[in-house]
């Protein structure tokens, strides 16, 4: 019971950090309409990008996990303070309109709540001892026990002379170690319950936001617009609620171990689950946005943060580049948007850099020593 109580603060803190950081970034950008879900989503990507940059520095410099934890504690405090300063006005506006917004969801609000609660409940209750959980949760528990980052094999405990690039460059598992270190809770509770719950919550937000993008202007030509409550915004919101339900149902009936749905419900503590259920839907939303002719600079900036966070999550982030190359690049080429084409590659830079470093380590051109 004591452990469960201690697990509540990190469970609340993580989404709060995402919201605060997202609010700060949106305030800096100024041009965007503030939405709580968009801010939390953007904050999540920026937060993990920041964590990746910091953790990689600490890992490659052979610094200790405790040092990283202390550094992250300071970063978290700054994020919270900056978030409150920069976001309080926008939050207040959002809260005053909350009733109106919730009303516009109608019955859809109950669908969203039920789907989110069911998803969180599934990942909280599910347990397994698979080989992959051995590796990823083992990475966190080994880091915490040895007070090192990536220098011991998580599955056997043996010392590693060199970092395994495929795993060492994606620092997401160490986040659980950092949180467990800061809040003095067992790594397994943090990784398998707290992180899983937060991940599935963010994945649901991503699907909802994707729904909002897909159904923008939905019902405009349906002749249903009779009042403000029944306007296009309301209809797209309700369609997004149903879209979330449809995705949940399809995930519930994902019958093979390879489909994203199974990663979401059974391997939610892994970065791969976030690539398939958080990053890829967001990149798909960017592809649709680009096809509709919104080649704002913001699109490429968002792509950059998604790719950066993707690198933190897993080596499978390379598929983010594949999706962007399939869904955005041809549109830019066909429409001769040469300037935007120049922005596309910096947008995918984190993934391309990761791929370059990985290729060099695999071919002996780069040696990432894990010992002095």
């Amino acid at each position, binding site marked *: 019971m004591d452990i469960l109580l201690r697990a509540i603060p990190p469970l609340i803190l993580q989404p709060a950090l995402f919201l605060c950081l997202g609010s700060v970034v949106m305030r800096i950008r100024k041009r965007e309409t503030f939405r709580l879900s968009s801010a939390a989503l953007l904050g999540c990507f920026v937060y993990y990008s920041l964590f990746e940059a910091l953790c990689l520095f600490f890992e490659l410099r052979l610094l200790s996990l405790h040092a990283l934890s202390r550094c992250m504690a300071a970063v978290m405090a700054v994020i919270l303070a900056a978030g409150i300063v920069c976001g309080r006005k926008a939050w207040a506006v959002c809260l005053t309109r909350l009733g109106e917004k919730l009303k516009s969801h109608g019955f859809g609000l109950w669908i969203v709540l039920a789907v989110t609660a069911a998803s969180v409940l599934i990942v909280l209750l599910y347990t397994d001892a698979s080989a992959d959980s051995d590796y990823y949760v083992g990475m966190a*528990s*080994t880091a915490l026990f040895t007070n*090192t980052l990536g220098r011991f094999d998580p599955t056997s405990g043996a010392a590693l002379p060199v970092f395994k690039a495929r795993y060492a460059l994606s620092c997401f598992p160490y986040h659980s170690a950092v949180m467990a270190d800061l809040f003095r809770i067992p790594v*397994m509770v943090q990784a398998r319950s707290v992180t899983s719950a937060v991940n599935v919550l963010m994945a649901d937000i991503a699907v909802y936001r994707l729904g909002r993008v897909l159904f923008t202007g939905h019902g405009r030509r349906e002749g249903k617009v009779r009042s403000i409550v029944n306007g296009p915004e309301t*209809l797209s919101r309700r369609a997004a609620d149903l879209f979330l339900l449809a995705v949940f149902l399809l995930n519930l009936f994902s*019958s093979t171990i390879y489909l994203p749905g199974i990663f979401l419900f059974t391997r939610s503590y892994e970065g791969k689950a976030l690539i398939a259920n958080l990053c890829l*839907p967001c990149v798909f939303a960017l592809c649709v946005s680009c096809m509709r002719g919104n080649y704002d600079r913001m699109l490429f900036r968002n792509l950059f943060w998604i790719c950066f966070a993707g690198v933190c999550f897993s080596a499978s982030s390379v598929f983010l580049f594949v999706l962007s190359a399939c869904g955005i690049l041809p549109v830019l080429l066909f429409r001769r948007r040469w300037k935007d084409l120049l922005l596309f590659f910096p947008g995918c830079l984190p993934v391309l850099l990761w791929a370059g470093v990985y290729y060099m380590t695999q071919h002996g051109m780069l040696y990432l020593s894990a010992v002095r």
Partner: protein
Amino acid sequence: MSGVTVSAYGLRFVAECLKTYLGRSWPFFAVALCGMLLHLVLAVKMKTVRAGDAWPVSKVLWLILICMALTVCNPFPVRKIVPRFGMTTVYYRVFWVFPLTAGAAWYLTLLWTRQKKKITGLLLFGICLAALVFLVPLNPGVENLLSRTALPTNVYKVDGAVPGLCSAVHEDYERTREYAAAMEELAGADLKSAEGAELFASSLPRCIFPFKLEFAVRQYDAGIALSFDRNMRLYYEGNRSTGLSYKGNRTYRQCALILRGMYGLDDTISEKEMKRCLKKTGTDYLIVETELANRLLLERSGCELVTQSAGYDIYRFGLTKA
């Protein structure tokens, strides 16, 4: 994907991977493809569809599908490139690029919401749900939850025996001379050096656990080292999903011999061989189910029964009590 390799399937590799990837969830693909085709036919016939807000989504889906078919899912380059990058076992992740779930969900939502009467939409939703229930099996994880085989028994979400076994191993190990000597050596060591890291790793009690517990042990307690690493143990249990072979690996052969010996799976294993392998692999503790333990061989090989806990025997090898 276990068993689906380029060498076995050649140009059919991509198709076979897709088939295995979808399994009995093929209706998702069918829904997405039907929606895309219908939208394409309507768009060719009617200008109003092309001007609609829904058409760009179908266009993106077509674009992604065509680009993938020409590049990452083109069987000709895939046959050459995938094995070179060692991606045979994880090639299925390429299919994540196509937003299958989102695509199918998008067309289903369109179907439900674009009806003039609400009741028609509700009826269609009911039909889709019934089709899902009857055509597609439940997510295996959710199915395990419903059948209560995956429900956690403790806050750590590990087998209930793991915490007790780990404590018993530590308790016994900390009373040995080897532990005291290792701690003394470790006191002044620099863990950032190769020697220091090796020293630290060798100061942990090295164990072999039953397969059921092996993968949970280091998640729960990283203070216990294992003789097998993950891929090696998977290979021993007949899982070839990693694509690695340990047939010629000496450490693997020694660990496999210990496992066969402790479970009595091979009568030809002598005490001498067992002892040699335990020494070579540096194994300190063997944890084995009480009813499956090959007691005679273990005791003759110099293993001492430390304790019995939660239906498991803990044997110690080569350590002396302080």
